[in-house]
């Protein structure tokens, strides 16, 4: 069970971090992530199956494509609407995910697809069954967590990203170009959503709803960790992964899909800032 939870967490931690980063900069919960992940999955499929690239290369290309799509969506959709309230932008982001899904359905149909990579039987370790694919997902997720930490903590651009997230006006006074930093952040987050699409395609199946199905667990992980806090998102992903796996021990499996919602509801009641977020004071 612990291993199952770890794989779940590895799948949702990178997009939960990206979701948190995006929220930090743009100040609204962007539900278009479902559509972005689906774009990643289908881009990787296109490079891997019809174009015949090996999966690692296809994954890298899909990350680039998704980064571009997320940046474009920011420039074309959200930037012109930045004067609107967070609720308006949230609704727009839901509409955007529906549009993206349906455009994909138009070109690829609703058929189920998979990458050109054979399924593998598991290794048996201490009673747990692990496949090489799942180990790769966990390792990559860890690498991304560390890389993102290094980027935010030790580089000039990371500090600028945090500064813009904290106080855009003060950052601008200090000479940080907020537009460029925002573009960079959306592209980094886009790459993470693209990679999640690849992981989801490996773990589940590639179909137009693949991203939407992951949205609630990702959102729950980000809220649990404290929305806006990328490290919190990692812990949040672990807890959501564990909670989903543990549910089936006590409740029928059909309730599993509601676990994410319950976590969100309980947290908003008891600790709205999340486990690692800081309470915001509004005047």
């Amino acid at each position, binding site marked *: *069970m612990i291993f*199952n939870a770890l*794989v*779940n967490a590895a*799948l*949702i931690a990178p997009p939960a971090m990206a979701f948190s980063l995006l929220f930090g900069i743009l100040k609204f919960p962007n539900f278009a992530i479902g559509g972005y992940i689906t774009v990643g999955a289908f881009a990787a499929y296109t490079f891997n199956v019809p174009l015949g690239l090996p999966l690692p290369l296809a994954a890298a290309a899909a990350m680039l494509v998704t980064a571009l799509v997320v940046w474009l969506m920011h420039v074309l959709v959200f930037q012109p609407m930045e004067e609107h309230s967070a609720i308006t932008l949230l609704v727009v982001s839901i509409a955007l995910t529906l549009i993206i899904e349906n455009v994909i359905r138009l070109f690829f*149909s*609703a*058929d*189920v*697809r*998979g990458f050109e990579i*054979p*399924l*593998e*039987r*598991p290794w*048996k370790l201490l009673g747990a*069954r692990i*496949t090489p*694919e*799942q180990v790769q997902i966990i390792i990559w997720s860890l690498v991304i967590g560390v890389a993102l930490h290094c980027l935010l903590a030790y580089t000039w651009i990371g500090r600028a990203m945090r500064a813009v997230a904290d106080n855009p006006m003060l950052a601008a006074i200090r000479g940080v170009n907020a537009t460029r930093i925002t573009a960079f952040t959306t592209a980094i987050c886009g790459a993470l959503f693209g990679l999640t699409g690849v992981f989801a395609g490996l*773990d*589940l*199946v590639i*179909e137009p*709803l693949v991203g*939407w*199905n*992951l949205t*609630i*667990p990702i959102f729950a992980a980000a809220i649990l960790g404290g929305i806006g806090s990328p490290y919190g998102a990692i812990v949040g992903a672990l807890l959501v992964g564990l909670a*989903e*796996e543990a*549910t*089936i021990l006590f409740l*029928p*499996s*059909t309730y*599993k*899909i509601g676990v994410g919602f319950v976590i969100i509801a309980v947290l908003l009641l008891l600790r709205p800032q999340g486990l690692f977020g800081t309470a915001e004071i509004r005047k």
Partner: protein
Amino acid sequence: MKFSMTRRSLLAGSAAALMTPAILRAQEADIAIGSLTPNTGGGGPFGPNITASHKRVADAVNAAGGVLGRQIRLYQENSETNPETAVRAADKLISVNKVSAIIGTFSSSVTLGIMPKCQSANIIQMCTSSSADIPIADEKGLVFNFQPLSPIWGRAIADLVLSRGLENYALMALNNDFTRSMMDGFIERVGTEALVQDPFYYNAGQSSYRSEVTQLIEKSPEAVFIPSYVTDFTAVYKELYRQGYEGAVITISLSTGDQFKSTVGAAADGVIHGFPVPALSSPAYKEYLTEAGLEDTGSVQHPFGTAGRDQMSVLLLAMEKAGTTDSAAVAQAIWDVTTGEGKKTVYNVADGLAAIRAGEEINYSGASGSIEFDAEGGVLGRDFQLSEIQDGKDVVIQRLEY
């Protein structure tokens, strides 16, 4: 602008006005029938065959002079295997095209979705759907189902796998009416003592199926039965394989088509699947193969296209028999031309029309099965077939004849 009318234009206008009702009368004389089929989406592999069958039968009847002295006008719509799209299409068929019947719906959600509109407009429906809710929702007795209900699928698949000597099972079904009642039918036949644990359900669209699969194979059952649809079954099967399960995996053939096989690749080998199939030895099936330009390979081809042929044939025979397109009379005539002993058996619409016109009682025996309806408009039985995927292809391992 000044408007002037010459005697010539008056004459032309009057002639046109007199002509118009004639055109309208000609259109009214046609019998409008709606063909609403799953040409894309989950039923995509089957819809085009159903559509083609509807059209072939209608064209053949039109070429031979039509039914009740009127031509058949077929209106084709794609349901996209999606109830919302289907309801919009049904709306158009009913209010714009004024159809007498909507035939060819495939998934239960589509058949049930359009049913309120069809019932209020007194329109006959013919479908290949399996939800046990269909006869309950059909308050006016206007729905005819050319597919057995899902508990019958479960019982038939259980009978077929029992004869393979499998002794214990673990069961998990997608949480919807079609698959839940199929699981009940399966349990009815194998008995609860053959189950290693309580059966359970999962939802479609989950972010992972890991814990469900772990629970399913926890007690190392000899076989698992998973009534499902292709999207969730593919994800569940990948997980079963990755968790090292080596027993028999049994499901329905709708989940194991080309999409499944190309997604999981060589790992698909060994999966056992079953579903209702045409009666391969029946003369009507052989006629169907000729009509569709297919070779008789001895294996099942066009499992739903055959039902499409039977739907249109039965509908037209019933209209001829009833002598009207009034839905209540046609519904009654559908039983008359399909069900009951001591009548002349016919295998195609041309022979049936000739016999009816000669005053004979007929029993239409179709390409998809013998087509006998119960009191609720459900087909009484179909042949079932169990196949196993070997080297990426379906190999028939058993058949159950009705």
